[in-house]
């Protein structure tokens, strides 16, 4: 009789080492992930903490006064709102129709490949080059001068590629059988798109559009030379305060405001700078939450 029956399923030395390595890698990649996220969360908390003395409803609703040393950020806030609104009015229809074209009409040929390449490249053009383009094309060539419309057009061109891509993806998730059924009822291509494809992908499209709102609101470089200005006299109350800028007016914007008060202007209270930054981050988080909520809603509602 042999001394000890060996267990054939016992862990060998090598397997044990393998498991150790596996756990180690799992933990270290987890640490790397958190190393990216924790500092940013800490920074956001720090920003809000520093901004706390300034944050109030008045800070949001008052206009900047006395060279930005008093008042609030209403002018820049409403300026950013109008910038985003006008740029979306321009970019959303073009982008969505372009997405429809790429998913519903385009065949797999060189033209489509060329368009996809152009979309990728448009997304990769540096934001300051968009600013140069806006200055050369809208401000000087089309003679708009520096104004809200020129800046919105510039931002619209910049946000276009992501709207196109997300629309394309949303449309691609609608099953082909929906379209085939609709065509069999005698509907034309556009009728199918209008009544079947678009309604079934609207949440996906909106998610992409909403994400672009956040991007458009935060961009500074494209509006530097196309219409943003440091301070403009706008009314403090009433209708004039709600719609202070016409399409041909120069305007204040949150991003530009933060850039100027943190680099160029002296004597601006620290809490104002932090307050502006915190409001921007708050807006971005709010917009992103809406988009995430949309995505969850979309997933829960999916019937196919």
């Amino acid at each position: 009789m042999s001394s000890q029956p060996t267990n054939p399923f016992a862990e060998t030395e090598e397997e044990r080492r393998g498991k150790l390595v596996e756990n180690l890698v799992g933990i270290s990649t987890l640490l790397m992930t958190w190393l990216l996220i924790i500092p940013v969360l800490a920074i956001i908390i720090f920003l809000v903490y520093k901004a706390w003395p300034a944050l109030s409803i008045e800070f949001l609703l008052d206009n900047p006064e006395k060279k930005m040393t008093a008042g609030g950020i209403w002018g820049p806030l409403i300026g950013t709102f109008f910038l985003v609104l006008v740029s979306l009015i321009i970019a959303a229809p073009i982008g969505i129709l372009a997405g429809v074209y790429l998913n519903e009409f385009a065949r797999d040929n060189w033209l489509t490949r060329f368009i996809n390449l152009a979309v990728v490249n448009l997304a990769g053009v540096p934001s300051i080059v968009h600013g140069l383009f806006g200055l050369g094309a809208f401000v000087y060539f089309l003679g708009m001068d520096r104004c809200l419309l020129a800046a919105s057009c510039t931002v619209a061109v910049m946000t276009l590629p992501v709207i196109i891509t997300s629309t394309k993806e949303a449309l691609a998730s609608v099953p082909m059988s929906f379209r085939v059924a609709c065509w069999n009822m005698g509907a034309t291509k556009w009728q199918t798109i209008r009544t079947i494809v678009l309604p079934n992908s609207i949440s996906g499209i909106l998610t992409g559009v909403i994400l672009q709102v956040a991007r458009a609101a935060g961009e500074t470089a494209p509006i530097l030379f196309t219409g943003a200005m440091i301070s403009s006299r706008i009314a403090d109350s009433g209708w004039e305060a709600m719609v202070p800028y016409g399409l041909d007016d120069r305007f204040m914007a949150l991003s530009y405001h933060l850039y100027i008060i943190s680099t160029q202007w002296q004597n601006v209270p620290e809490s104002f700078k932090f307050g502006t930054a915190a409001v921007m981050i708050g807006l971005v988080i709010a917009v992103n939450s809406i988009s995430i909520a949309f995505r969850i809603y979309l997933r829960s509602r999916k019937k196919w």
Partner: protein
Amino acid sequence: MPEASPATEKRFSLRRSVQKVVDFTEPAIVGLIHLCGWSAIIFVMAIFFFVFKESLPAITGIEEGDAVHAEVVKLDLVEFATSPKWIPESAKRPTFGILALMVGTLSVTVLSMLIAVPLGLGAAVYVSEFSKGKSREILKVLIELLAAIPSVVWGFIGLVILNPMIVEVTGEPVGLNILNAGIVLALMSVPIIVSVSEDALRAVPDSYREAGMALGANRWEMVYKVLFPAAKHGLLAAVLLGIGRGIGETMAVLMCTGHSVNMPTSIFDPVRTLTATIAAELGEAVRGDMHYHTLFLIGVVLFAFAFVINLTADLIVKGIKVQGNE
């Protein structure tokens, strides 16, 4: 059988005429969709055209001086590419050399990639291979949040938070330098690296993973020896897109680099980048003079950089798809 009353007749023809209008709108809308579909090409070409058009006089020559002593001034392209001196507003002899600016852009981008690529790949591996369920969703949302923070806020963070921290830790007099901008840029470009490389890892078929497991590989061996080689094109594209983001970033580097024209010798030197130069100086340049047109020429250089990088990344990604079909 009663004949159709005039009323129904009328309704019938009304519907017909409505249908006719519909028939007319259909091709109109389809045409509009086609036009919008081509808009991306139109805009890319328009961007190149207008930026190039505004920069052209610098190359072909501008008339300077008064009517009596008018002389045609041309930009010295060799000096433009090789001189480290950027002195645009000199009264005596303005010098337009972008070498120092290019080195500034490259140094900041390279440092940011040294930080962002390992962290981004690690995070992508964790999110795609080790985490599951809720925690994966939460991590993805948080990383998306990183991508959403506006660049001017990143610049502000570098200016008021990282700047004093770097002064304190390293003892340098000013904390606005390559290190500061590199860290900020790394945090900015991480989300795109994570999401693109996670996509690449996800695109590796599960049969590869199963085969690896069946051969007795543990998870790390599977990631390292199976997934990385299989997804290498996608990972490379992720890094390239991160580099593209770094080269094109404007506001954050404008606020964090210290903004002085300088050939850097260490990561604690302040530099200035191509993008920041345009952002800072175009507002003051007079339209039509050499400085103005040269700034547009820098824009052309940036456009070309971005174009080559995106084209390469796109070709690499396409390479995967072709491989996948085989």
